[in-house]
């Protein structure tokens, strides 16, 4: 609402386009400069690669979240979903070692199951939201608790670990590079492009935006609101599954603490990127930048010990607020406003 009412005030077109589109990019740039000034190693190839690879998890999940949020929903369950999918993947792969061995076949089986699980979990969220007519916030808060406790249960309170030999087979998916870029980054790029096309260049993306703008108008415009909304949750589930597929080889394990607070990070990435939380306007490009910004903040804080470790959270919070404030460009307009 804030954005809707604020929008008409913008008198000239220039600063508007500027900030919505370039805002997150500028924020990221400033962060990079700060990082470099703190420690030139920040711009070393190794660090850049690390940064991109790390952003991949949250970034991929956030692409899914962009669809959910654009269509006016919200998904709080993604972190727990990632944990439970990782857990089940590991269980399935470990038990498939007996029959399929520790080769690629088992890994592919695991990835396949991951995708099926992601789609299934997304469908549950979507179904309960649309057919059950329960607020998305409640549904996904509920499934968040359920998924998280399920993974703890499967792991018997401890950690589920991938068979050691299997880990060798699976490792390259996280650690290898193709054409100079690590595999997770490629997956990220792929998901980002696919997401961008889907949101901006297909009828489906239009439907999401329309539903987020006004469900009633969408319904009267021959859009199958419930179905499309369910699809957004399924896309979210799929993205979580993909993120999990590249997460598992990294740490080779899953536990009750896997993916804690990823949901907030993902949503934050989406909002920092310029998507409107109440729906109706989504920007995949912004989301990608949002994910990069969040990862960079963490990275920079690891690069310096000027600040007490305890105050990391303070820095993170401040930077997020300032980044969004800068990009919303409200500082330029404040005095023009009448209220």
């Amino acid at each position, binding site marked *: 609402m804030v954005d*809707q009412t604020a*929008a*008409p005030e913008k*008198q*000239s*077109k220039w600063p508007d386009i500027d900030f919505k589109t370039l805002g997150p990019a500028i924020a990221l740039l400033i962060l990079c400069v700060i990082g470099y000034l703190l420690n030139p190693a920040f711009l070393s190839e190794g660090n850049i690669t690390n940064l991109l690879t790390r952003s991949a998890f949250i970034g991929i999940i956030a692409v899914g979240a962009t669809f959910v949020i654009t269509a006016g929903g919200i998904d709080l369950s993604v972190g727990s979903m990632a944990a439970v999918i990782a857990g089940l993947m590991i269980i399935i792969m470990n038990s498939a070692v007996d029959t399929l061995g520790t080769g690629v076949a088992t890994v592919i089986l695991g990835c396949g199951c991951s995708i099926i699980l992601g789609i299934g979990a997304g469908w549950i969220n979507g179904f309960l939201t649309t057919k059950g007519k329960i607020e998305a916030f409640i549904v996904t808060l509920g499934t968040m608790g359920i998924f998280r406790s399920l993974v703890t249960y499967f792991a018997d309170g401890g950690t589920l670990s991938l068979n050691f030999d299997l880990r060798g087979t699976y490792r390259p998916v996280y650690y290898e590079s193709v054409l100079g870029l690590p595999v997770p980054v490629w997956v990220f790029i792929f998901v980002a492009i696919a997401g961008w*096309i889907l949101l901006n*260049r*297909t*009828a489906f993306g*239009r*439907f999401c*935006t*329309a539903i987020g*703008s*006004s469900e*009633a*108008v*969408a*319904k*009267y*415009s*021959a*859009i*199958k609101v419930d179905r499309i909304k369910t699809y957004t949750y399924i896309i979210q589930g799929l993205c979580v599954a993909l993120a999990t597929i590249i997460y598992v080889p990294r740490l080779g394990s899953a536990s009750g603490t896997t993916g804690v607070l990823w949901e907030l990070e993902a949503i934050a990435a989406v909002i920092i990127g310029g998507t409107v939380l109440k729906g*109706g*306007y989504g920007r995949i490009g912004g989301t990608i930048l949002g994910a990069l910004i969040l990862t960079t903040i963490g990275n920079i804080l690891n690069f310096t010990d000027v600040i007490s470790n305890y105050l990391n959270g303070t820095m993170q919070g401040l930077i997020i607020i300032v980044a969004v404030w800068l990009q919303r460009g409200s500082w330029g307009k404040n005095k023009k406003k*009448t*209220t």
Partner: protein
Amino acid sequence: MDDSSNKAVLLADRISKSFGEVPVLFSVNFDVQAGEVHALIGENGAGKSTLMKILGGFHAPTSGNLIYDGEETVLPPNGQAEALGIVLIHQELNLAEQMTVEENIFLGRELSRNGFLDRKEMSQKVASWLQEVGMNISPNDRISELSIAEKQMVEIVKAMSRDARVLIMDEPTAVLTDAETELFFQQVEKLKKRGVAIIFVSHKLAEVNQIADRVTILRDGQWIATKPVDELSLDSMAQMMVGRELSNLYPPKNEADVDSDIVLQVQNLVAPNVNNVSFELRKGEILGFSGLVGSGRTALFEAICGLSSIEEGQVYLDGQPVQFKNVAEARDAGVTYLTKDRKGRGLLLEKTMRPNLTLMALPKFVKNFMMDTAAEEEALKRGIRRFDIRARDPKVKVGDMSGGNQQKLLLAKIMECDPRIVIIDEPTRGIDVGTKQQIYHFIAALAADGMSVVVISSEMPEIIGVCHRVAVMREGRITGVVTGNDNNETEIVRYAAGLKEARVHG
């Protein structure tokens, strides 16, 4: 003009307004005196609403002055001018949907005693006001549960409750039926006698003729004339608005072929607010639906198009039984419904014209799984031309377009679906005479091309002028169908009011 401006309560002196680079008003003069009704007319997008908003303090003029009570004034923003006695009824409904009638009417002006709301007092007042305008709703009803007409009446009650010295009303009657308009005008007369200065915007020229003392005409943001109403005939008003001679408003009726195929047949339909309705629609026919507000016309067609559920009865399309589960199925079968609630259900107000235009027919604009933006652009150009949509800035948000142009866009949107049967609910709501004429001709052309059209309208002349046959509804039933010579106002009103009821066989 000179002598009147002395007595003017509120006077606009050479007002200009631009939105960004887009100029909308050019040095317009306007004034209103105590105890008079000053009507403002003009084509869609002429700048009437913009001028009203400036007079109400909601927009600041780009240049020019407002003189209130003889003093140059800068009105406070956001409805705070109410404190000065200037009250505006917006063209677009301006009510909080989830709140009750009473809460809305007193919003921002709650009566409190010792810091607590005096709910009994407010409730009683609202109840008595509602009664005064003949409204049969409770102060505790939620706005979201009211029909559009009822919402408009709530707006009117809200405005009238505010002890205005200047009451500005932007198309208050657009969604009202004649009966309601009549009640409303009685209130206006009362206010006038009390010395309230009233500004009235309407596209219904007959109403203007009836209620106004003076009329100002605006065209393309320019002031054209201000005259006492007696010096103007309906035709001259229309002519000055449009800037050209208007031929006959309604197209000649070529009688529909009574033997042509029945494309839509409805038998004993029972649905929410619809009670055992049967009728049939032939190819090339224009079938009107008349009735009082809340008679169930909208409910009937929403049920047919899959927007609400059918409880009993059967719908046949080309003789085949159908039951649409959603709008998409109806659209794919060639049946489309244009809602009367253009703001709430018709258009995405935050988006520009293009995505709105193609939204309903989106599958048509997909090429290789991608949106074909070129085709969309093409469609937009076509739509703008065909329906004479006038938006000075093509990238304007639909919510910022003038009401009439929104309505035209909505029509264009429905037509993108290439329907065989099109159901238009209140097709000309808020549309100027010139464009009305175009739309009537357009409907006639559709029928001539072999399409079937259902026109739901509360404007009696429109229904009579355009339709081959008119079904009249009352309390969810069809009480009668009139054709030919019976297609006249008295006959329809008798059915609508329940004075007469025919046995209608399916």
